[in-house]
């Protein structure tokens, strides 16, 4: 039974993926598509291994920008959410703004940020990633700190608990699942922002800029190889955030509300 389930969970998508690649390969051969139009998967894969060390270097640059931005944005987002939950009037001022900014592609701001720093600086990209992450973390964690069950608040009041005790024993634990939700959303967003911010100038050293430069040189298969690298980097960020969440929930933060 479990084997059948596992097969259904992983086997079927895997078979579908392989079939899709085979279809792609076959289509390129059958219709004799030109390399500048669509490169076959076999060519992309060989380019990927030929350029492995260069892809790795570019991934390190983009990955580091994403990581630094992710950490800084999360730290500022968490700090700000505490301030917002303490001062409700600030919350009513800033939360709608944060939600609105979440809905627009603010990463184009990197073009403006680029003007503030030297042309080879990675700082504008990292600031951009931080900003994107910051708003996601802020909105979610502030929600976790404020949307506490009424019953819990009444109980704490009946225990004559102070505001600090309510914060430590109710609001913070309540916000932890929200923080991990925010991380799961913002980890891939950080990687995407890191790539896209490379399109707006600066050093040509990351995955995003390598993709554009290879396309500019009509090295289509190589560009695809860098796209594959970008996919893998995004996947790594996402998986790490999922693993972190699992570790944290096993450490006592489990929130399975199926009985509620």
């Amino acid at each position: 039974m479990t084997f059948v389930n596992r097969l259904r969970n992983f086997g079927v998508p895997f078979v579908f993926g392989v079939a899709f690649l085979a279809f792609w390969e076959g289509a390129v051969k059958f219709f004799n598509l030109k390399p500048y139009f669509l490169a076959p998967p076999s060519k992309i894969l060989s380019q990927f291994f030929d350029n492995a060390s260069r892809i790795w270097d570019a991934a390190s640059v983009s990955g580091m920008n994403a990581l630094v931005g992710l950490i800084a944005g999360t730290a500022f987002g968490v700090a700000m959410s505490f301030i917002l939950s303490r001062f409700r009037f600030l919350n009513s001022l800033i939360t709608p703004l944060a939600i609105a900014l979440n809905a627009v592609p603010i990463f184009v701001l990197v073009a403006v940020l680029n003007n503030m720093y030297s042309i080879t600086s990675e700082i504008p990209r990292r600031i951009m990633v931080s900003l994107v992450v910051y708003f996601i973390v802020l909105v979610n964690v502030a929600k976790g700190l404020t949307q506490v069950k009424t019953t819990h608040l009444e109980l704490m009041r009946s225990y004559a608990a102070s505001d600090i005790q309510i914060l430590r024993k109710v609001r913070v634990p309540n916000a932890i699942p929200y923080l991990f939700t925010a991380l799961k959303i913002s980890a891939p967003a950080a990687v995407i922002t890191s790539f896209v911010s490379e399109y707006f100038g600066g050093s040509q050293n990351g995955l995003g800029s390598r993709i554009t430069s290879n396309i500019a040189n009509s090295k289509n298969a190589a560009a695809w190889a860098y796209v594959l690298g970008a996919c893998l980097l995004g996947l790594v960020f996402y998986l790490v955030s999922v693993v972190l969440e699992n570790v944290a929930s096993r450490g006592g933060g489990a929130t399975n509300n199926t009985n509620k």
Partner: protein
Amino acid sequence: MSAVHVAGVSKIFNQGTPKQVDALVDVNLTVEPGEFVSLIGPSGCGKSTLLRLIANLLEPTTGAVTVNGKTAAQSRLDQDYGMAFQQAGLFDWRSVAKNIELPLELKGWDTEKRAARAKEMLDLVKLPEFADLMPWQLSGGMQQRIAIARALAAHPPLLLMDEPFGALDEMTREYMQGELLRICAETKTTVVFVTHSIPEAVYLSNRVVVMSPRPGRITEVINVNLGENRSEDTRAADNFFAGITAVREALRGTHADHANAGAIRGVEDR
């Protein structure tokens, strides 16, 4: 010294605005130590508000509430009462034992003393083997027993309950009623109990306080002493049905003014 003394209490929400609600008007009630008193009435009669005034979760607009001879505010600060709600309200991120220990933690008890008391309370509610489970691994009835254990952990003389069995199925509910009576007898706890259910109020209580809405007030207090040794047989006894009839008639009386027969049927169904 009475356990709870409510004197000339009114509670008006949103006073002086178009949304003004007279939740309670001129309520007087005295509960003696060791007594089990139920508050019953249709929605909006202010029974939960009255409970929250006793708990000092709300302040009365006029009048005074005394608990154990102290102001309601002082007895809240002294944790003179435990409280249980319709939602068990266990903290998902704490084990069952740690949930029971929470009020003791806030009182500043040391770890060992807390653990010993949590064990004692788990024995009291007959769930000793569940200490290390997480709340979501328990059924609704078990969660509610843990909530009662938590409310009684600090051995408060008074237990305030707001429809604690309202979300449970009928069988679990009757079982929980028996357990609550046993626990209160063992711990000699005074109880003020809010409910929608007439049989529940009659089965559990020494006195049933019947309330009516718009404005919320006490219309009648009915003595229903079914004796110390209530059992499942009590639910088939004549004096049980007599008590139910008395409470039902008192409730119907409150509704006669409103010619609102539908609402009383709603009460009976619960």
